[in-house]
C-alpha cells in the first residue's frame, strides 16, 4: 500500500509535485523534536514508501500549525498530509504506541466517546504514566486545580448515546479503542 495513494484518498493531498526543497522543514517550529523532518516524509512518500513510513513519531509531534502548508512553493498541504499519516498509522496499528502524543489522542477520543465531552482532569490523570517527569508536572495540575481550572466534575450532554456512537463501523479499518490505563 503506497502511502502517497492513501494520502490522496484520505485527505486529498497529492505529494507527487514535491520538489524536495525543504521549505516545510525550515519553517516547522517543532522539527527539533521530530525523528524525521517533514520534507523527508514527503520525499519518501513521493518515492513510493509503504507502511514502514507510518511508524515515525514526527506526525504526532506536529502541532498542525500550518506554517508548512503556507510556504510550500508547489502548494502541497503538508499539514494535511501529516494528518493523513496520523490517520493511516492509527488505522493500521503502526502508530508508536508509547509516544505520549499518540496516547494523548487515543485517550482524548476515549474520554469523548464515554462522556460526550472532554473532561480535562480525567484525561491528564489517564495520561500520567506517559508524561515525562510526571511528579514535577503534578505542580501544574495542583496549580490549575487551585485556580478552579480543572473541575472535578463536568456536565455532559443529556442525550449522549454512549461510546458506541463513535465506535468503528463493521468492516472499517479502524481498530477498537485501546483498553485505557
Amino acid at each position, binding site marked *: 500500500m503506497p502511502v502517497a495513494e492513501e494520502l490522496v484518498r484520505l485527505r486529498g493531498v497529492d505529494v507527487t509535485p514535491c520538489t524536495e526543497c525543504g521549505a516545510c522543514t525550515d519553517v516547522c517550529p*517543532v522539527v527539533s523534536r521530530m525523528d524525521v523532518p517533514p520534507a523527508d516524509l514527503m520525499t519518501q512518500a513521493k518515492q513510493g514508501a509503504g507502511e514502514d513510513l507510518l511508524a515515525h513519531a514526527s506526525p504526532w509531534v506536529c502541532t498542525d500549525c500550518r506554517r508548512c502548508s503556507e510556504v510550500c512553493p508547489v502548494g502541497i498541504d503538508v499539514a494535511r498530509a501529516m494528518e493523513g499519516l496520523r*490517520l493511516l498509522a492509527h488505522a493500521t496499528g503502526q502508530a508508536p504506541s508509547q509516544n505520549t502524543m499518540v496516547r494523548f*489522542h487515543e485517550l482524548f477520543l476515549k474520554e469523548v466517546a464515554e462522556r460526550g465531552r472532554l473532561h*480535562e482532569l480525567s484525561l491528564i490523570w489517564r495520561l500520567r504514566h506517559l508524561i515525562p517527569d510526571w511528579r514535577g508536572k503534578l505542580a501544574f495540575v495542583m496549580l*490549575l486545580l487551585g485556580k478552579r481550572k480543572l473541575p472535578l466534575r463536568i456536565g455532559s450532554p443529556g442525550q449522549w448515546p454512549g461510546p458506541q456512537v463513535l465506535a*468503528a463501523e463493521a468492516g472499517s479499518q479502524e481498530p477498537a479503542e485501546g483498553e485505557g490505563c
Partner: protein
Amino acid sequence: MLRFSYFPGCTLTGSAREYDLATRSVAGALDIELLELADWNCCGGVTAASLSERALNVLGRRNLEQVPQEAPELLCPCPHCYTSFARTLASAGQNAAEMGVNLRNILDVFAGGEVLERLVERRTEPLTDLRLAGYYGCKLSRPDPEVASHRSERGSSAGFGESAGALERVIEACGATAVEWPAGADCCGAALGVASGDAAEELLAAIYQAVLGAGAEAIVVACPLCHLNLDLHQYQVSQRLGSRVDVPVFFITELMAVALGIEECEDWLERHVTSPLPMFMRFIEAQEEREYWGEEGPPGEATGEEPVPAAAASEEVGAGGSQESERPGL
C-alpha cells in the same frame, strides 16, 4: 439586537471557564443574544481529525443539527471548534446546505464594526496607554482550507484574524495601544504543552522574548489552548530565558469586560495563573499620577519615582482580583 447560537466547547467549561463567563457577560453588555446549544458535545478537537474521520463527523453533526433555525449563525469562541465544524460541514456536502449553519468565530462577532462602536460608547474604564500584544496563534492566522471555503461561500470576509488586524481593533477600542510584534502568529505548542512541556516551553520562550522586546505589558488571545500554554508556563520560561517573565494573558472578551467596567471580571481574572493584578496596579498608579499632575507630569524631572497617592489602591478602579497580591509560586 444581534443573535447567535452559542457553542461553548469543552475547555470553556474547564480550563478556560473565564473565557465563557467573559464572553457571555460582554455579550449581555453589548446587546448580543447568545443561545447556547441545548445538548452540545465535544467537537472532536484536533484528535478526531487525526484518528477517525467518522468520529469527527458524528461529533460535529450532532452539534450542528441542534442549531435552531431562528439563530442559524453559530458562534464558536474556540478556534479549534470553529475549524472542526467547518470541516464537518465540508464533508457533509449537500446536507450542510440543508442545515444552513453559518459559522462565526469570536473575532467575527466581537471585532465587528457595530459591536466595537458600542464598546467605545459604553466603556467606562478605557485602558489608556496600556501596551498590549495581540496573539492569534495558528488557527486564526492560517485557517484550514475548509474554513476559508466556508467563509467565501457564506460571504464572510475571507481575511480574518491576523490578516484583518482584528485583535488590534479590539485592543484600540478598549482604549489601549496595540504593539507591533513579530510573533503574533507563531505556534504556542498546542497539545505539546500537556504531553511534552519541554517542547512547548521552547516555543513559548521565543514568544515571550518577542513580547518583552516589543515592550508589551500583556498579551491578548482568542484561543483557550494558547491561553493555557501562555499563562501556565511563565515560571519555567523565566528560568529558561534567565529573566523574569510576568506578563498576564487575557482573553479578548475579558479585556472588553475590563474596559466595560463589568464587576464580575475580578472573579474571572483570579483564575489566571499569571496574576494580572501587578499590571493593573501599575496602570492605576500611572492613571492617578496623570490625574494629579495633568498631562505634563510632575514638575521637574518626570522620573516616575514620585510618591503615589494612597488612593491608588482604591477598589473602584481596580479590575484585578483584589485579594490576590503575590504571584502564585510553584
